[in-house]
């Protein structure tokens, strides 16, 4: 959660209110729904804590296991508990300890306090491939972060979004952004072929289709989707109608610019619009590279750059699709969305064997971390602080400024078309890709400290799901440091091709 960088984002409801009540008693004409629908029509099939309007929250995270990983497991812990609670009609209040006092709407009938929502704590376990955890933190009343994790054999799609708290319904924005980007990533046929990495899963869409055809629940409403399934079953949220196969024609994908010798520390940038020819349902998304695009990790030696860059093109298209989905929220649901439209940040990455493509808008980050040394921040925040630091202001002064966290780019109707910044690299030594919202990195601004804490969490983890345990430990770290914001962290180990 953060403030937006420009005035339009902090408007309170006003300008559209004349419209809002223009029809008098029948002002539903403006918002396009029956009066009170937001309060009444929401059914809460299995999520006692979900508030009206948050119906789509429960399944922000979806696990897509490949044949190698067992379907579900601990990942159900977060939502599983919620489902269990709903089995009883009434549960005890965690605030005033009144017995069986919390009803179907999640509020205590005695003290009125909200008992909790499923989205307050979400976990996704991709076994040895990846894990992600999202948590409400300790100071915010709801989790406005959202995440997506889909894993295959040595392949993972991961998305982390953070709602802009100054906007209206930011939790809806992050939810739809994470899901849309995740679905687009899963649906894309990554143009990685013939590079000798036979074991790389390049087409996750087939997996998704198989799963969809099998026992999973598929809900195809892009606006408000509530999918509640037995947590022990695999859940795939996807929209078959909107699935588009991205062009796999290698001639039309991005090419690496001539950068000289190709030595280990070479900075690779996308100079062509990798995704120009990628058809997304919501229009083409130019993957712009830009001078601001960060370099690849120092440790990521480039051998065959094309696969990674092609993946980055897919990521760019996915982010553009997410941007369009978030923008569409401004014209649905509560009329207040029109004046302060839902907005969020996004960082997304797709890992295919040793190849990593990533992209972002806003200040959610991706890091690359190896066995030693400081973490490499792959992304560059779209934030006020980042801009003034670039202009020469002392970083400490900049980060202590109240505006430090104001973001200068976001997904939302008021931001217009988004040109996500992307990056790509192919690893030559094993390491971890870490995606997180500022709820974590705020407490670890120093790359060395960040690396130490993440490595400590990874080293201390054992058991059946060490990655999940490590992700949980990082969330706990942020909560113990204050938990001032929602926290989301995703861990994806990446290995070189020859290992």
């Amino acid at each position: 959660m953060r403030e937006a960088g420009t005035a339009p984002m902090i408007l309170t409801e006003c300008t559209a209110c004349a419209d809002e009540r223009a029809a008098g008693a029948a002002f539903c004409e403006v918002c396009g729904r029956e009066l009170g629908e937001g309060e009444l029509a929401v059914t809460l099939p299995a999520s006692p804590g979900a508030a009206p309007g948050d119906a789509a929250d429960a399944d922000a995270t979806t696990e897509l296991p490949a044949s190698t990983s067992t379907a579900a497991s601990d990942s159900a812990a977060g939502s599983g508990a919620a489902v269990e609670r709903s089995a009883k009609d009434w549960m005890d209040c965690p605030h005033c300890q009144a017995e069986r006092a919390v009803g179907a709407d999640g509020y205590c009938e005695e003290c009125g306090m909200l008992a909790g929502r499923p989205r307050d704590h979400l976990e996704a376990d991709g076994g040895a491939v990846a894990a992600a955890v999202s948590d409400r933190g300790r100071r915010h009343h709801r989790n406005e972060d959202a995440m997506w994790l889909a894993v295959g054999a040595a392949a993972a799609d991961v998305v982390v979004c953070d709602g802009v708290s100054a906007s209206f319904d930011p939790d809806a924005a992050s939810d739809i952004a994470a899901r849309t980007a995740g679905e687009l990533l899963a649906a894309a046929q990554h143009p990685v072929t013939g590079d000798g990495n036979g074991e790389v899963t390049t087409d996750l869409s087939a997996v998704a289709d198989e799963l969809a055809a099998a026992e999973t629940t598929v809900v195809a409403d892009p606006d408000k989707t509530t999918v509640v399934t037995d947590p022990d079953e695999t859940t795939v949220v996807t929209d078959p109608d909107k699935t588009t196969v991205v062009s796999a024609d290698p001639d039309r994908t991005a090419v690496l610019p001539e950068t000289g010798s190709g030595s280990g520390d070479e900075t690779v940038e996308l100079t062509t619009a990798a995704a120009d020819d990628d058809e997304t349902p919501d229009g083409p998304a130019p993957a712009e590279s830009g001078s601001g695009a960060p370099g690849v990790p120092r440790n990521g030696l480039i051998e065959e750059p094309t696969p990674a860059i092609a993946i980055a093109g897919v990521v760019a298209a996915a982010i553009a699709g997410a941007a369009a989905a978030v923008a569409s929220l401004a014209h649905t649901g509560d009329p207040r969305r029109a004046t302060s439209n839902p907005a969020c940040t996004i960082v997304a990455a797709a890992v295919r064997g040793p190849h990593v493509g990533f992209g972002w808008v806003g200040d959610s980050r991706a890091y690359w971390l190896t066995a030693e040394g400081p973490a490499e921040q792959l992304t560059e925040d779209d934030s006020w602080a980042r801009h003034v630091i670039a202009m020469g202001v002392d970083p400490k002064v900049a980060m202590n400024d109240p505006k430090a966290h104001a973001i200068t780019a976001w997904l939302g109707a008021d931001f217009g078309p988004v040109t996500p910044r992307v990056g790509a690299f192919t690893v030559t030594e094993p390491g971890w890709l870490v995606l997180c919202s500022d709820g974590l990195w705020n407490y670890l601004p120093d790359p060395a400290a960040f690396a130490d804490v993440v490595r400590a969490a990874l080293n201390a983890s054992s058991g059946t799901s060490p990655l999940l345990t490590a992700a949980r430990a990082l969330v706990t770290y942020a909560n113990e440091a204050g938990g001032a914001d929602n926290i989301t962290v995703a861990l994806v180990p990446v290995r070189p091709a020859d290992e």
Partner: protein
Amino acid sequence: MSYTAEAFQNEYLALGASEVNAIVTVTSTGAAGGRRTSGATEIIIVDASGSMQAEGRIGAARQAAKAAVECIDDGVHFAIIAGVSTAQQLYPDPGQLAVASPQTRADASRAIDRLQPGGGTAMGAWLLLAAQLFALRPGDIAHAILLTDGDNGERYGYLESVLETITGKFTCDCRGVGTNWKVAELRKIATALLGTVDIVAKPLDLTAAFEQMMTAAMGKTSADVQLKVWTPVNSTVRFVKQVEPQVVDLTGKRVADGARAGRYPLGAWGQESRDYHICVDVTPGSSGDEMLAARVSVVEGDTVHAQSLVRAVWTDDTALSTRINRQVAHYTGQAELAEVIQAGLAAREAGDDRTATLKFGRAAQIAHDSGNAATEELLAKVVEIEDAATGTVRMRRKVSAEDEMALDTRSTKTVRVGRAQ
């Protein structure tokens, strides 16, 4: 009839804040024309005191009552009471109700023609007789129209004690003809009986006023709709006010319903929409806490028609907690508008022009800012508005009693957010 209830609020509160405000809009929609779910009874009470002879009032009252009778739907029970020093039933025979039909309406018209002025004004007795007649048909939509032209002549306190016994039994719209009646007195009746009060300065306008009231009454399809407000432990409802179409404080009408809830009567409903301002004091939570401050339901007996949640979320983010909700701000202003007008009129009557000028100035400012053009217009007849934006007004030397009373009776009339902008 189906109802909806929608809450408008800024749920974000600063740390330590305990006051939760919300506007709940209740809207009912039914099949076209709306079918009554129960029977209906109408009683027309016409003042027939001696003073009604003046200015052709009794003639106009006869015309108006006849017009109102013509508006009564077939099958509706009705009666007409002639108000003098005692209450006399004019039609049908004493202790009975007629069933509306072309025949009974014609009979009633002839009975009304016999209405002759003479005697005093005894509103308590009139209302008591009406209550007795309504009691013949429990469960009906019970509505009365009271027309008077003067002060109540009953002993002090009698009217109040009658109102106490009959409150909730029926709704009553009150109209004062001429300028010799007391606004406060009729307002007391209308407030206790969930009705409206207005001035009909010219007897000629009575017919239109009666027709309008009766048509509105015929549009009611549900007899006794209530607002049920649940609040958590250690919290209190500071007030529940209807704020649109007019300000009516319902706080004192609370009837406890279990340990945590109370019911507030809303009277009869047709196809309409009304706004309610609910203010609850709760125990402050800590940052990030979310509380259900009130669960507001529209109920009829044991049936819950609609429900809306009023929430409180404590945050240390002042950008969120300082947001002003337009609906709450608007109706807080409209309630203040009614208060300052009434305070201004009281000060003016007491000869305190200084206070009156201040109050009217503030009233002009609110009326202007909120787009309440009707009230601004009425205000302009009592004071000269020099600059509405700054609330600069000057007292008029000569103000007609009619304009003053119109401003008083209509001071509670509100406008909806954005409607006049």
